[in-house]
């Protein structure tokens, strides 16, 4: 409760921790080029949970890679503590859309990976890894290989691996996209709980509306082609939250409100993919 209050005050009065300032990204040159991100601006304050939502292909992963420092060539600025980032920043921890556990490492060695890179000694490494394995609800699975786990469990391993590195900003790209709805809701609960316990500043990238409303303090709605900020919506649902919030009236209003914006973009995206498919059939 107290944590939630601090988070809320932090969100309203604190300095912006992450600033996206007029970011522009174009792939290719000339006629075949694609503007993936067109002058997007927004910020994420300390302790805040912000979601970026938009239909498939609108440039979300591109934005994710730029903020994570994995994509260097872009116009505009990504600022962390007022400094423009150059490459992956130590304050940012990334969770990828794709399956990203190391198949040759068991659960605990996967989670301890970032500590190994930092040269943390073995016993401390294992202690800290245990703590985060516990936090994502994988206690008892430490010695299993990723191949023995379900997709949802592997994604939790990835999340624990990123959390163990102690990022000030947790950056996630559709971490639940490949999961079924029940697992998604339960994992959402887990994320909310972790975010509240650690007062973790989080930027979640998603195409799932329910997920975004369930988890966020604010939602950045993106347009499709080029990717722009269409609207930023404050979600004033009470915290601490659980997945029960999904059945409340207020939740339904938010979903309906954002969906009316999103529908337009999503149908443009769909028309686009279909016309591409009709004119240039490629596998």
């Amino acid at each position, binding site marked *: 409760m107290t944590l939630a209050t601090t988070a809320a005050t932090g969100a309203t009065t604190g300095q912006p921790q992450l600033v996206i300032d007029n970011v522009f990204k174009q792939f290719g040159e000339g006629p075949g080029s694609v503007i993936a991100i067109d002058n997007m601006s927004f910020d994420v304050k300390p302790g805040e949970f912000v979601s970026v939502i938009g239909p498939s292909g609108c440039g979300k992963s591109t934005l994710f890679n730029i903020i994570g420092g*994995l994509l260097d060539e872009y116009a505009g600025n990504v600022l962390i503590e007022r400094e423009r980032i150059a*490459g992956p920043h130590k304050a940012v*921890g990334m969770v990828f859309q*794709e399956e990203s556990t190391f198949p*040759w490492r068991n659960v605990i060695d996967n989670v301890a990976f*970032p500590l190994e*890179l930092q040269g943390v000694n073995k016993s401390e490494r294992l202690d800290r890894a245990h703590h985060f394995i516990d936090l994502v609800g994988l206690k*008892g699975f430490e010695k299993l290989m990723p191949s023995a786990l379900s997709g949802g469990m592997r994604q939790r391993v990835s999340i624990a691996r990123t959390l163990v590195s102690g990022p000030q900003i947790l950056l996630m790209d559709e971490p639940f996209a490949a999961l079924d709805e029940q697992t998604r809701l339960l994992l959402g609960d887990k994320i909310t709980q972790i975010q509240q316990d650690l007062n973790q500043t989080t930027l979640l990238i998603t195409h799932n509306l329910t997920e975004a409303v369930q988890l966020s303090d604010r939602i950045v709605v993106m347009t499709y082609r080029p990717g722009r900020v269409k609207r930023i919506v404050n979600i004033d649902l009470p915290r601490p939250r659980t997945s029960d919030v999904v059945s409340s009236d207020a939740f339904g209003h938010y979903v309906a409100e954002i969906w009316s914006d999103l529908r337009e973009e999503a149908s443009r995206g769909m028309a686009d993919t279909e016309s591409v498919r009709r004119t240039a059939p490629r596998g």
Partner: protein
Amino acid sequence: MAATGQVKNPTATMGFAARRASDARSTNLIRIGLLLAIAGSWEALARSGLLFRDVVPSLFSISAAIWKLLGNPAFYANLQVTAWEIFASLAIGSGLGIAVGIILGANRFLGAAFEPYVYYLAPTPRIIFFPVMIMWFGVGIASKIALGALSCFFTVALSTAGGMREVDKVLIRVGRSFRATQWQMATKIYLPAMRAPVLNGIRLGFGTATVTALLAETKLSNQGLGFMIMQIYARFDMPSLYGLLIIVFILAGIGNLILGKVTGTSA
């Protein structure tokens, strides 16, 4: 939840292992059955008198010949020579193959420029380079090692380059996002990710090195198992010839099995 996971998983793994074991048992039965069937038809053919007795000797004379070969010191001397040739070919060919494979795999330009050569040279029978190797390295074991290394090199280089290129891109991005150094990227991501394809390449390389070494020995040499085969052939001692072929077959199988174990346990 954690408790059920702890209890449930070992049993699940055991069930899986048990199923695998019973699968292995039935494939073994089929294999043994096949061997018995071949041996039976062979013996029937040998006794039928349809073919010359000398061309298809009875299993008893072949067994006797194997027994005699196993007691012959010359066999062990030749075995040692061939084993050394194969080992040295494999070591040299794999070492160079891995190094070149990494360069081709890591560098898109070099890969595009040179890989076609490796690719098209790989299936050419290496034995055609044998005369060249004899001129360079003489008629002794050096020319066999060189030829074996050459054949092993192509296989290992191609599988290493392929393995390097197929390292899951997202794992590389994970490493970069955690700000791994170049050295950490190499040792903690590329190397473990490439282990399976490289070891598999070495295993295939062992096969080609063995074939090449034996073939070269049958062409021009004065020692080694290939040489011994030709000596026996010159005497037209069919039981010993078949006996030696069976021994070579089994030894190559054992070698392959050992390498397979190494690959299998690590992959």
